[in-house]
């Protein structure tokens, strides 16, 4: 079993701090058990409050025999508070007495998908996380990359603006005055306008992926984030756009995965914990 081969996932607490909730999983005997999901966090008005709030909540829910804690934070938090990673790790470690590491979500997702999704030998891989913002997780030369503001492909110029205005899920509101979740809901009922908008979205996403290939030339591109719920509606136009890529040899060989296992992010974070200890 590949998980066992990667290490002993035992007594590891995994915490995912997204922008609106906290998820906690506990690894015992190479499988996960949910401790708590969907805990709504108060919108934090300061770095100190965010750290205190999170550390307190984690300490309260940490099982007594925990050996490692992996905290995964949405990259957006780190952009708001550049010191968050170090400060949060220190605070949680002090409160729990357990070795703690903090990583970006993109990095953990990339790590989890690479090793559990079937790409352990890949040297260059990209996680294209499509939410209200566009964020990248990058593996280059077999090394995970950590850099801010680097890898902000959403900020690259495109048409009359930037890619984020055409490819994030917020682009539907900017372009058409419609919420993504409403479009998705209507598309599931085969409403024609919503289907057309999502199909058109696939064209823009295809152009973004072409740019990604020109910059990083990866072997695997993983599309993740809320947009993947609509992949069945944009997949055809995405691939039609990719077929116009200037170098067919490259498109034929590259792997583009349009969905990821949600739990792989926890496995990726926990694996980084094992790798660092």
């Amino acid at each position: 079993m590949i998980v066992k081969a990667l290490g002993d996932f035992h007594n590891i607490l995994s915490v995912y701090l997204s922008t609106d909730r906290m998820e906690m999983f506990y690894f015992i005997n190479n499988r996960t058990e949910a401790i708590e999901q969907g805990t709504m966090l108060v919108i934090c008005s300061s770095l100190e409050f965010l750290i205190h709030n999170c550390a307190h909540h984690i300490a309260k829910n940490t099982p007594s025999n925990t050996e490692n804690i992996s905290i995964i934070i949405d990259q957006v938090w780190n952009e708001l508070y550049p010191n968050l990673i170090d400060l949060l790790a220190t605070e949680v470690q002090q409160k729990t007495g357990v070795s703690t590491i903090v990583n970006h979500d993109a990095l953990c997702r990339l790590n989890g998908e690479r090793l559990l999704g079937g790409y352990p030998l890949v040297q260059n891989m990209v996680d294209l996380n499509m939410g209200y913002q566009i964020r990248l997780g990058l593996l280059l030369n077999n090394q995970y990359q950590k850099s801010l503001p680097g890898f902000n492909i959403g900020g690259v110029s495109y048409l009359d603006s930037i890619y984020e205005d055409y490819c994030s899920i917020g682009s539907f509101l900017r372009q058409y005055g419609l919420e993504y979740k409403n479009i998705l809901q209507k598309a599931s009922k085969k409403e024609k306008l919503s289907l057309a908008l999502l199909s058109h979205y696939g064209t823009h996403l295809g152009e973004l992926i072409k740019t990604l290939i020109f910059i990083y030339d990866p072997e695997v591109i993983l599309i993740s984030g809320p947009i993947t719920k609509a992949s069945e509606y944009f997949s055809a136009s995405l691939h039609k756009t990719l077929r116009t890529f200037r170098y067919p040899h490259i498109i034929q060989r590259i792997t583009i995965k349009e969905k990821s296992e949600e739990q792989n992010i926890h496995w990726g974070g926990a694996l980084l914990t094992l790798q660092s200890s």
Partner: protein
Amino acid sequence: MGNIFEKHLPDQTIVGVDLGGTNVRAGLIENGILINKSHYKLPQNENDKNIVLNIIYKAIEDVFTSKVTAIGIGVPGLVDRKTGAIFGIQNIKSFDYIPLKDLIENRFLVPVSIDNDANCFALGEKIFGLGQKFENLVGLAIGTGMGAGIINRGQLISDSNCGSGEFGEIPYLDGVLEDYCSGKFFKNKIALSGEELLEKAKLGDKEALDIFNQYGYHLGKAIKIILLTIDPEAIIIGGSVSKSVNYFYDAMMAEVHRFVYPKTAQKITIEVSELKDGALFGAASLVAKTKALILN
């Protein structure tokens, strides 16, 4: 020149080959010193690949000696890193998925390394040039086209098609960045080459100075994309257009300093390559890189 050949390959003799769209150059490098060179023009729009291949063979044969232990080749296109086949080669349409590595190895009976020419430029800068003091850098080669090589943590990215850093292909305004940031911009604007425009600028020609200012603005936009997506410590600019840097530098930096993250813009080092025969050293460094990795 203190360099990696002396450090890792004290007794090695290497041929570096710069295959361009219109010329092929080869150089014999012994202990880090270029001791012999050859140069041939390539026929344009030649459909017979063997005619082009024979010219490349001839360029190498002119400098090849029995002491040569390896050949490094930079090409203006892409390379299948697994097979050494080249494709997407500018101006040499007959070279579509040609197994160049195998062909050259079979003929000269020494190991051959091939990579994109912009990657060679970046690696050459890292090993021999201004890039020696940086671990993360982008070598931006600007001539009739625009391409870049990315050095990450001291190593060239080992991408599967040698195709990373192709910033020139990114959509921009009504075309792609290369239309505005390479010599194509001057051709389209005023039907002059970069060299011709430089001569006019040196004489104070207002139109030429204005075009270089516009060019600097667009190149600044391209550099901002590099900062956004790579975030290197340094960008080293090379290629024929870099000779005109004095005429576009201020406009370029003014745009760079409008970057959304001001601290990044303040930190970045942007320099112009000082390497003579950089393309040949860059191609040769492909071999040095491989050997150095083995020795380390």
